C-alpha cells in the first residue's frame, strides 16, 4: 500500500531536483524522491549484508600471523598469474 510523505527540503536541493525534472531526467519531483529512497534502501541492505559477513570473519580471526599466512598463500596464485600474463 502506498503512503504519502511530507518532506522539508533545503531550497537549494529542491531547486536542483526541479532542474533535473525540467531537463527530463525524471518525470516529476516525486519520481526523483522515490528513486533516491530506493537507492538508499538498496545501499542499506548491502551494508547490512557486508556487516554480517565481516562480523563472522572477524570472530574467526585468530592472530596477525595467521592473517599474514592467509595473504601469503593467496598471493602465490597471483604471482603465477602475473608471470603467465607477462610471458604472453
Amino acid at each position, binding site marked *: 500500500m502506498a503512503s504519502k510523505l511530507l518532506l522539508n527540503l533545503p531550497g537549494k536541493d529542491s531547486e536542483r531536483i526541479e532542474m533535473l525534472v525540467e531537463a527530463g531526467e525524471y518525470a516529476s519531483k516525486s519520481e526523483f524522491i522515490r528513486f533516491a529512497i530506493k537507492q538508499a534502501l538498496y545501499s542499506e541492505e548491502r551494508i547490512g549484508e557486508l556487516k554480517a559477513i565481516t562480523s563472522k*570473519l572477524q570472530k574467526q580471526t585468530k592472530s596477525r600471523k595467521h592473517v599474514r599466512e592467509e*595473504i601469503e598463500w593467496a598471493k602465490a596464485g597471483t604471482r603465477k598469474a*602475473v608471470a603467465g600474463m607477462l610471458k604472453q
Partner: protein
Amino acid sequence: MASRPLVVLVDTTVLYSAIVYRGLENRVLFSGNHIFVTTDFVISEIQRIIVTKRGLGRREARRMVRSMPVVVASSDLIKTKLEEADELMGKRDRSDVPLVALALTIPGHDGIWSTDKDFEVVKGRFKVWKTRELLKV
C-alpha cells in the same frame, strides 16, 4: 577533510585487514571519505582466502565483495602497463605488480594505500599512504 575525496589504490593486506579486523583499516575503508580502487587480482586473492581458508560459500563471498566500498579495475585495463610495473616491482614481489600497473594506468590518482614495505620502491613515483595518515586527511 580534503576539499575533494582522495582517489586511493588499495593493496590486499590493507583491504583484507579492513575486513577481518575492527581496526584502523576498517575505520578508513568505511569512513566514506575517500574513493578506493583496486585490481581484480586483489579481489580474487580475498575471495580465495575467504572461500578456501575461512569456509564461506562462493555466493556469500561474491556478495561480500560486491558490497565493499571499492571500485574494481579489470585486468584488461592494466595489461598494457604490466611490463613497466614488473620492472618497478617485479623483483620485490610479483603479486604487487598489478596494483603498480593500476597506478601507472589511472591518471590523477592520489597514491597507494599499503602497509607493505615492498611498495617503498615506488615511493619516488607515487605517494604511498600509511593507514594513520589517511585517518588524518
